[in-house]
């Protein structure tokens, strides 16, 4: 796995994209789920909003994982 580096000359969104690509190389299936739900992680500016982000993000991930599990079982 190559090293992830953020480029100071690029915007946060561009660096975030590099991060997502990096993680898709680590695990394509999980990386896709992260990409689909990454917007939920963008507005955490304090403990309260981060708790809210978690309450939105993790249930979405659970739904995605259950879908993958069903697909794997051939349901």
């Amino acid at each position, binding site marked *: 796995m190559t090293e*992830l*580096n953020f480029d*100071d000359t690029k915007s946060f969104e561009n660096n975030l994209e590099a*991060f997502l690509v990096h993680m898709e190389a680590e695990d394509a299936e*999980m990386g896709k789920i*992260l990409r689909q739900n990454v917007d939920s*992680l963008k507005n955490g500016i304090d403990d309260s909003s981060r708790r809210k982000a978690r309450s939105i993000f993790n249930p979405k991930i659970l739904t995605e*994982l259950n879908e*993958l599990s069903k697909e794997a079982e051939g349901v």
Partner: protein
Amino acid sequence: MSRYFLLGVKVEGFRGINNEGDPLSVKFKKDKISSIFAINGVGKSSLFDAIYYAITGKLPKLDALHYVERSEDYYVNRFHSRSRGTIELLFESDDATPKTHTVAVERLSDGTRLVTSPSGHPDPEALLSSFHSSFALLDYQTFNNFISNSPLERGRSFSTLLGLDVYSDFRQTLKAVADTRALNTDLNVPVLQARIRGYSDNATTSLVKLGNAYKSIFSKDMGEIDKLKDFFAEVLESLQQVELIKDDAKVASLEDIDFEAIVKTIKTAEGGTDRDRFIELSSLLTKLKLIGSPSTKIEDEKADLKTKVEELNELYESTAGKERRKLYDAADHLLDSGGWHNPNQCPLCESSLTTSIRETVTTQQDQYKQVDIKITETRQYWQISELRKRIVLLEDSVGKDIPITDKHFTSNDAKIINGGAKLSDIEELITYYLKLETRLNAAVKKFTEEYDALSKKLPKSLVQLTEQVEFAKQFHEATVDYEVNITKYNETKNDIDFRVRWQGFINKADEEYAKAETELSRQKLLTIESEYKAMFANVMGSSDVVPNLTRDDATEHLYVQLEEFRGQQDLSAKPLLSESYRNALAISVYLSAAMKHADAPRFIVLDDISSSFDAGHELNLIEYIRTKLQYGANGNGIQFIILTHDDLMQNLFERLSSSGEVHHQVIEGMPPYNLTMRSKNATQLRQNAVTPLTAGQMEVGKFWVRPYLECILMEVIRKLNISVPLDFAVQDKKRMVQNCLDAIKKDVQLHIDAGKIILTQAQIDDMKNTHVPALLSNWVSHFETGSGTSVSPAVLIGVLNSVDKFADCFKYDYTDPQSHLVTRKYYKNLSTR
């Protein structure tokens, strides 16, 4: 992207600024420092609050109040009759062709915030939001927090300074969703793990049952479970070969067989109550026999389990107990977060320690870790033990009618799994197990005796057939149970596998992101290193204290170190630096970082930031800002607006203002009524006093007399370069008129004695014999000595006239060489015109 200067603010009805119908209007210059002075309680902080609220929509110092204090009642000025706060900001873009925008923010008494743009900006709220950066509005507390915060808090606020707040926020959010405990809960992992244990136990039990049923039918072991379909067919075939029931067994699969129909067929062939009881006994015995004999491993397991529980309890004894563990965990957290710096002092009672606090915490936590390892080892051993499986099986068959109070499996099972079992619990569990075995043997014996008696009475062939059918039925039921549980086990395992995979993935994501963000932050830190070090050295006028900020490689911690401290190297800054040094460091870091930014606000409002500085350091700071950072002096610079209540700063700004190097203004007035701004406009001040005095409004008019007197007397001092005492700037502000008069009289007398005075004798006489006595008797003795004797408005108007005449004693008739117009002009100094 356009950046904006702040050119002015008008405030009415907000915080301490009432100014009903006549908003306090303050103008700022973009190309020089705009300084604003006010004595305490006049409204300087309210001005800062107004700008802060207009831009951010909140006031943290009010929001931090306890709810019973009803902070929302203190935004709008409490004396404003319409209970409506209005703040109007004027911005100018830094484009080649500047654009100006006015944004008005209103705060109503019910907390409503209204944002409009009188100049017609299409989205004034968005414009204000773009100014909400970490730099635009800074006060003393911001700088103080920077040093006093923990390394983690500092690291996070520093990310904001470096413009990396969005990176830091995302990192923290990613960490929050990747937290192992939170993720376990959110993804229901413990629930699924409990379920999978249940399915596994049930499948194992069913497997034992169907193996025993097979053996009873064919008198041989069943073989590998992966051939279950073959065994299924074999059992069906065995039934189809029996003449009496072959029609009932003529089905494609064992699961299609109607066992009730077969039993009926047998009953019909040999009727009677003995037959019914025989079939019933056969069924009961079959179920009991399917349990089989206890594994030979069980005896060893009983002993092993006791040993493990004893070892665990010995380990427990070696620790200081559960409550103390919380203390060590808290200490560990304190040390990790950098909240405790003296390794040889107890953070709880502050006594000295012979062993470092870190060593003590690590040793104690290691003991607790040994306990955790033992708990896990014992749990794993127990969960797969034959003894546990056997007790589950026995309780399900011969333990159902045991009263709940006499059942000892569930509670002791939980204790072993959670690490809370004592030796007595294990002994109780073993006794219970033996009781279940005894019950099993007794039941088998009882039913066998009855069964044997009946089998002697009934025809032998039907006895065996009944047995065979019953075993086939049990085989079928156990197989169904087994398959159901295996299916659920596999489904659940699949779910768990995906969730565990996600946990690994998101943890890796958190780790990778953190590494990249840390490196980016480290790189950004390097870009301001030389600037903040140079500014710190300049402000403190010293190069033997050199600060250094270092970012931890693995965490968000930011450490403030001293690279150099009076000949010593690499020391912690927090315990060594005095308050002024700390603030100078924080200011240097903030302003150096701000200069690197290209965010929308191209202005910084600083509120009372140098309170801890002495005069020299304040001068250094202002000079550094004025000559290196301020837009105008530096083409890439920022506009600075500095609010202060400090007399030293006031005098410094007055001096710089007279030479046009800063734009200085003073807030004056009488809260809770009207405040106004004074710059150098003596005419306005005089008008402010004369108009109400003429109308008989003594209280309002007299307020403006002192500023006017000070303004004129300071003007005389400045224009003629009158010498003042060294402590002039720090003398009692309320006695400034007296101080000015004393300084002027003394310098005049010095010039007279030296025979160098430029003033005419008439001017000297008027000044000494008429105007100074008039000012002393009609103003100083009433208002600076605190005698409080009342005077009339006419007397105060006389005082204003006296100071004008006093100033005129220092002027001469000047004829313009070109226009030949004659004007009164100040002498150049006391000896030259």
